[in-house]
């Protein structure tokens, strides 16, 4: 079993222990401070809500990982791609099309967008240092933001494609009243899992996937062995665009399609720090940790300092990780050769 898989399984086993410890800690704190409220049922509820929120973060982070893995570029515009994709989808639905057709058309738009980005931004900047490319993606971020809203308007849009949103009560036997879980969040989790599995297979086992990894390492070297950079990049950004579309649908259904969606991208950064920039399973695990951590901190620690901890909790957590394990849980250690 390779080291990464071993580490993954260790975490899988260690996670329940960690959660139990956290629960006990919060229970202790609530006993001391009466402003804090704690029951085990409530704890599990918040935890699950956080984990499922985390899946949504992971979906956005996935797009980042794809592009970073394949081109070494940190795509700051991923968030606005999510927004743009969602806006386009809603736009098509509002024109009267059934959501499956709208999905296909929206996916097609993302492919067109990828082609445009490759031609206008990536090609002229090939071989520039990564920091320049990163700043170019900030430019794309602003451009897409304005463009999407110019095309489709900036009101908050409702996106409803029929995903069930009913609350479910589970485990009524174990906990009093059962635990409240939202059906929607479960669907999102399943979609996320399917997407991750598909992408992992794509990268590991297909020829295109291998070429993508080569390109991520060294543009010039990849070019010199005949890998068509243009095509590869277009493919990657298209796939990332479609991932963004799925993420946009999930987020949009949950919270409405609006400008603040673009800033979700910023939240994805801590996810990537935790999971490692080049790891697909890392994006998932990182998302889960950030999602759960944020919610738990807000509910059980927030009251101590007046709330709204979730504004900065994720970033502080990422900062701590950066200090002790910069490559994240699953990323590759960067060794600099002199």
């Amino acid at each position, binding site marked *: 079993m390779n080291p990464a898989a071993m580490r993954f399984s260790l975490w899988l086993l260690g996670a329940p222990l960690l959660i139990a410890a956290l629960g006990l800690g919060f229970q202790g704190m609530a006993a001391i401070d009466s402003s804090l409220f704690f029951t085990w049922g409530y704890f599990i509820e918040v935890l699950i809500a956080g984990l499922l929120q985390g899946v949504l973060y992971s979906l956005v982070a996935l797009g980042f990982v794809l592009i970073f893995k394949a081109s070494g570029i940190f795509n700051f515009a991923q968030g606005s791609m999510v927004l743009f994709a969602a806006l386009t989808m809603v736009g098509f639905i509002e024109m009267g099309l059934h959501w499956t057709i709208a999905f296909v058309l929206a996916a097609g738009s993302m492919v067109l967008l990828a082609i445009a980005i490759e031609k206008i931004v990536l090609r002229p900047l090939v071989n*520039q240092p990564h920091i320049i490319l990163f*700043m170019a993606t*900030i430019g794309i971020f602003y451009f897409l933001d*304005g463009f999407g*809203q*110019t095309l489709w308007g900036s009101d908050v849009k409702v996106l409803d494609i029929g995903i069930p949103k009913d609350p479910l009560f589970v485990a009524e036997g174990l906990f009093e009243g059962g635990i409240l879980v939202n059906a929607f969040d479960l669907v999102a989790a399943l979609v996320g899992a399917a997407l991750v599995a598909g992408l992992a297979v794509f990268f590991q086992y297909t020829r295109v996937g291998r070429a993508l990894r080569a390109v991520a390492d060294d543009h010039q070297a990849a070019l010199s062995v005949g890998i068509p950079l243009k095509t590869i990049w277009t493919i990657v950004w298209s796939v990332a665009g479609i991932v963004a579309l799925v993420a946009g649908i999930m987020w949009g259904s949950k919270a409405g399609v609006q400008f603040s969606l673009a800033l979700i991208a910023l939240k994805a950064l*801590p996810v990537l720090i935790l999971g490692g920039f080049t790891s697909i399973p890392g994006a998932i695990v990182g998302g889960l940790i950030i999602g759960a951590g944020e919610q738990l901190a807000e509910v059980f620690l927030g009251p101590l300092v007046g709330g709204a901890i979730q504004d900065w909790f994720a*970033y502080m957590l990422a*900062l701590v990780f950066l200090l002790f394990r910069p490559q994240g849980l699953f990323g590759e250690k960067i060794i600099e050769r002199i």
Partner: protein
Amino acid sequence: MFYRESGQFKTSYTADQSIFPIRQDRIGLLILGLVAVLAVPALASNYFVETIFVPFLVFAMAALGLNILTGYCGQLSLGTGGFMACGAFFSFKLATAFPELHIVLVFLLAGFGTAAVGVLFGLPSLRIKGFYLAVATLAAQFFLVWMFNKFDWWTNFSPSGVISAPPRAVLPGLDVTGSGADPITKYLFLLVVVTLSALVAKNLVRSRIGRSWMAIRDMDIAAEIIGIRPLWAKLSAFAVSSFFVGISGALWAFVYTGSVEALAFDINRSFQVLFMIIIGGLGSILGSFLGAAFIVLLPILLNNAPAALGLRISVELVSHMEFMVFGALIIFFLIVEPHGLARLWQIGKEKLRLWPFPY
């Protein structure tokens, strides 16, 4: 032909290392100085001064600070807004707690305070680089803004939550803050502050510390070989940068808008200042000014252009188009001239060597 350097030989290293070694540059600077000090106050309307020159100078200060950290030392920072907030709120607390303290001292102390905060959030830079560091600065940004918003102590427990900067005078009778301040006075005050800051920044950048910053930026491994201590160099960059950025935040609140609120310093502000130094030119003092001017003038241009062209576009649409133009310009500059307007300026001067002759 107007910009010929030939014939201007330097006979000492001192002359060679002066800030403006070419005579034409010195003349140009003199003219600019005269225009700034005499022409603007005499000719520009109060409205112009308040909406263009004052914010331009404040932004130039912020861009100066960020350029030191990101342009000269290569440490990408997205926390500019948070540090500006530090400067603003530190100044507010100091000014209200010690009303007799001169406003310039208040600003300087706030700057030092922000420098300390900058060093604190710069500590991770020893272990992390590039956009990983940007994430650390994001933590600073979000945490600081949250802190200033959340704890009423910062606003002196003001019931409405909106606080205005108390009026202060730089010399008796010359108010620079508060509603009674005359725009021209404010403008001249800012002019002096920003010019001095630019001078200090230029001096630092051409001395040992500036070279160590640039060495870290270009190749930090090689920098270590020649004896530069990376942590010291990076932290000093954070400190000096945050000093300037903090003062710019204080100026923003006290001299420009007149009110001290955390929301004015959110993540969008950080991006705005970053754009200024990208477009103006990373690693260039002149670039900070050019970028600030550009970003201040662009929205005004975009707002007035449709009217001038006879088109009627909604305000909302204009702000969306602003975003599009910003984004497109960033990409344009990165492709065409990654060294920004400052480099274009240099190229322009080189062409002036020959013009109007073809070769």
